[in-house]
């Protein structure tokens, strides 16, 4: 992989921005790096990963392909390609790339961590655990790996072990995003709602649109009030839906509404049909304003919660 004269410093700056949660800033730095040297495979690979974080999956795939064509024997480019392909749900191809990354650099812990993410998506719990342990054996202090292993334990019901790993990850890096979310989920499982909320809020302050942190906050809301919690869950779920699934949900609703409307009029139940029309219009109006309302409630939530001094 070729890294041009200024490339290394560009990459360091981009990675610093990413660590601060400033993904757009990182994109601009990587743009500069690639304007300086369009054949810098590292910059293309990091750009692909950054675009993936911004859900620009089409562009991420393009950048990952360019990186791979420039550096076909780099484990990093194969690892990034694996992540991008997971986002495109091309899981078999993703596995080929992550296996190639491990072949190229068997001692790189992040290659095993990437494989564990893939197996988590495919639901292969045993392989996921195996890869996480392989990653931890190679880098026992990495908060990324500790948090991922803790998440695995929490999903399999080992709450105490998940708590220990979350604590260890936060000791290594007190503001580690994934570890904060994990600790919040552990606290929620243990019934410590206020602690869970503090961790969720802290994680959301770092990444306001993070799906995991939003889901955690929605779960906390559900514990406090079922109605409010369901509203939070519904909005989080709507936010999680990709473009394709959103279209299908909206169209499914429309077809049901129209078919029911025609059937009611055929049955000469005009009053009910009118009520249905108003209900549908209300739902349409709600879906237009709901994202704005949800974001406002989220901002209020983030502003209202004060973290304890000893947090």
């Amino acid at each position, binding site marked *: 992989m070729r890294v041009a004269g200024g490339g290394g410093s560009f990459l360091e700056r981009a990675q610093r921005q990413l660590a601060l949660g400033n993904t757009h800033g990182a994109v601009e730095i990587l743009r500069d790096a690639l304007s300086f040297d369009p054949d810098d495979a590292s910059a293309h690979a990091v750009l692909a990963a950054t675009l993936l974080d911004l859900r620009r999956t089409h*562009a991420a795939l393009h950048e990952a392909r360019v990186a791979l064509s420039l550096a076909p024997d780099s484990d990093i480019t194969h690892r990034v390609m694996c992540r991008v392909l997971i986002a495109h749900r091309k899981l078999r191809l993703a596995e080929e790339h992550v296996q190639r990354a491990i072949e190229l650099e068997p001692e790189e812990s992040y290659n095993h961590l990437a494989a564990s993410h893939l197996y988590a998506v495919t639901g292969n719990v045993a392989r996921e655990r195996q890869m996480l342990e392989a990653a931890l054996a190679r880098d026992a202090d990495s908060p990324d790996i500790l948090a991922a292993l803790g998440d695995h334990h929490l999903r399999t019901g080992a709450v105490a072990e998940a708590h220990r790993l979350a604590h260890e990850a936060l000791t290594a890096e007190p503001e580690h995003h994934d570890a904060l979310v994990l600790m919040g989920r552990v606290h929620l499982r243990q019934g410590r709602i206020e602690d869970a909320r503090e961790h969720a809020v802290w994680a959301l302050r770092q990444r306001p649109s993070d799906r995991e942190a939003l889901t955690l906050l929605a779960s906390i809301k559900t514990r406090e009030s079922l109605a409010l919690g369901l509203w939070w869950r519904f909005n989080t779920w709507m936010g999680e839906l990709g473009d394709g699934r959103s279209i299908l949900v909206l*169209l499914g609703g*429309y077809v049901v509404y129209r078919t029911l409307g*025609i059937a009611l009029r055929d049955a000469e139940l005009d009053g009910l049909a009118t009520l249905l029309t108003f209900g549908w219009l209300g739902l349409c109006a709600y879906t237009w304003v709901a994202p704005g309302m949800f974001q406002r409630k989220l901002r209020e939530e983030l502003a209202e919660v004060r973290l304890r001094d000893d947090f």
Partner: protein
Amino acid sequence: MQGYQIVDEPRPGVLSHLTVNPYWPLLGLMLGGAWLGWTWFAFNAFAIGSASKGRELAAMALGVAGSAGIVIGVAALAGAGLVEEWTIPYLLVAVVAWKLLVGYYVYFQQSRSFALHAYFGGVERSGMVVVAVAFFVRIRLVDAVSVPLLEWVLG
């Protein structure tokens, strides 16, 4: 926007000052009809310099062909006596659903380019007046069009 260009970033042209948020053409499609929605989406794709312009235009062409296909298909089925008359309104729901499917698809595609257009400080115009005028024009237009196929495809 300078230097290296990422593949999904818009390439604004001379019409970029006429860019609207894609939800206006979508609303135009719903309230004014396909004739407005799709024409406006196509114009906006050029105004933004949308990176997915080809896909958007292809989808809209498929939208027109698909709507016509459904209407002709339903008419053929009814003409051949294969479906009863009372089922026709139910079958024609498919035309509206199809147009909305295409409309939403183009909307989501164009929204990505629009978000980047806005991020780079591009101009954004309001489409409210066009939608309001189109809503009233549609009623007259539907009255004026005496060909049911055109009415269903472009309405």
